[in-house]
């Protein structure tokens, strides 16, 4: 029986882009047990439901866990008001992350959109430690929303696109797919329309998608966060079976 509720002290807080905040949190258990693609379910004072946020990085030696999130509503706004020294109550690490057990892929493509980018950074770092070659495509709304660009460049070739062309290429992530040479596996996280477009364009490639859905429990008990499986036979739970799925496994609508 593991006590999965963890208290995490906020060590650092940084505005890394417009409305986008990075927290470095301290917790030994999570830093030692989290794998790329897993998330934290965060209790926010006064709210009924916890908020899921992906792990953006971990540092086992210092017991540090990094998250990055965008202010989009009540919960993230409140979370953004927390200051270093304060603690947050967290359930996690939750879910099944990216499958990297298969060490065959020698070259992977990471495709991240907006606030879907943080978990891919964690993934990229771990893969690159295993000498996997990384190519990244990162999509943002506009110049002011860009974050982690340099961090991804350190991992390998990185293509940045913005909706309005104010930074990098103008367009959406699929517009630069042609610039990318061959790869073994793709990993993607971002808004559903983006994931859908990628799934179609890369239907001949092996790949994984990380999904979002409104959650209740976050642990697989309430059946709030389901996604239809592609065999049409049922649902998977994003919080427990996912959030990462093989691209062929699920139906995006």
């Amino acid at each position, binding site marked *: 029986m593991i006590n999965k509720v963890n208290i995490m002290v906020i060590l650092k807080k940084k505005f890394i882009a417009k409305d986008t905040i990075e927290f470095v949190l301290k917790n030994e258990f999570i830093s030692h047990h989290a794998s790329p693609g897993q998330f934290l379910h965060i209790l926010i004072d006064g709210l009924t439901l916890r908020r899921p946020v992906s792990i953006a990085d971990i540092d086992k030696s210092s017991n540090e866990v990094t998250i990055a999130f965008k202010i989009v509503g009540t919960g993230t706004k409140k979370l953004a008001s927390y200051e270093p020294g304060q603690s947050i109550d967290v359930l996690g690490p939750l879910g099944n992350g990216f499958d990297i057990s298969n060490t065959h892929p020698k070259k992977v493509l990471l495709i991240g959109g907006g606030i879907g980018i943080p978990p891919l950074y964690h993934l990229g770092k771990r893969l690159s430690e295993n000498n996997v070659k990384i190519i990244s495509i990162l999509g943002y709304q506009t110049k002011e929303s860009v974050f982690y660009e340099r961090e991804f460049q350190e991992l390998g070739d990185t293509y940045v696109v913005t909706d309005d062309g104010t930074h990098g290429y103008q367009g959406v992530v699929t517009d630069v797919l042609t610039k990318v040479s061959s790869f073994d596996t793709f990993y993607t996280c971002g808004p559903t329309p983006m994931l859908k477009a990628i799934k179609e364009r890369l239907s001949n490639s092996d790949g994984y998608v990380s999904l979002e*859905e*409104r959650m209740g429990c976050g*642990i697989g008990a309430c059946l709030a*966060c389901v996604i239809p499986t592609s065999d049409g036979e049922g649902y998977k739970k994003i919080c427990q079976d996912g959030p990462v799925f093989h691209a062929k496994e699920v139906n995006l609508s």
Partner: protein
Amino acid sequence: MNLSVNLPGLSMKNPIMPASGCFGFGREYSSFFDLSTLGAVIMKSATKNERLGNPTPRVAETSSGMLNAIGLQNPGVEKIIESEIPFLADYDTCIIANIAGSSVEEYEYVAESFNQTDHVDALELNISCPNVKEGGIQFGTDPYMAAFVTETVKKVTNLPVYVKLSPNVTDIVAIAKAVESAGADGLSMINTLTGMQMHLPSQKPLIANKTGGLSGPAIKPIAIRMIYEVKQQVSIPIIGMGGIANAEDVLEFLLAGANAVAIGTANFNNPFICPEIINGLPNVLNKYGFHSINEAVGKGIFHEPADLSRS
């Protein structure tokens, strides 16, 4: 302090149980705490066949509450008996099977199916789920239909039957009395209130099913009022629920007339809420002068000596 409570079919070490649909079949929460600490577990609603439920989004957050429209997703009664009950039966706790359906025949079928296992201690009849479309009949809002489905189920089951009432009614006492006359062994109240949230960016209801059931602390005053009213008119026991989040809330429900309580939404906020409440209860009872659960039940039902109204 002795927290034990004895209700028809349920000989419980304490009056705390997770509410139906908020705890699955216990598997997930079993990795957080020992389910044997619970008075009972109420399982997710079972239907005759597997149900896939509603499209997503299925939940939304509201002020001090949430909306859900899961739509009774469940693997069907056979699978539940085969795969879920044996898991739960390994724990030292009572098991309540919640049953739902779109027709009286379905309720009958599901209730009867549970006779196959020895491990279920009582049935909870969900005649109040607001999140399913077909069938069309709202068994929970019509006293005659509520009584009919209760009677039908009573005929085919060997187990005590707790009827779970809907709060979306003008006169909950009428429904309670109807199911009591029809043979209900107990009541379970309240289920969720039908609500809706508009999603401004898309200009339509946020929940794919449009409406959802409102639960959480927001509805607690309504639950307390309904239990208080019903308690005075029926003699069968009541399992109370609706917004319970701590041991003080439990005592509030006991005072209003609940004999035991179920905890739903609060599990999502804190997966340890049930054992925490069980641990906290003796102190709270003590603080307000009670020596057992039963002593508190209905103590808040208060009859004025005379009419003090000054109007």
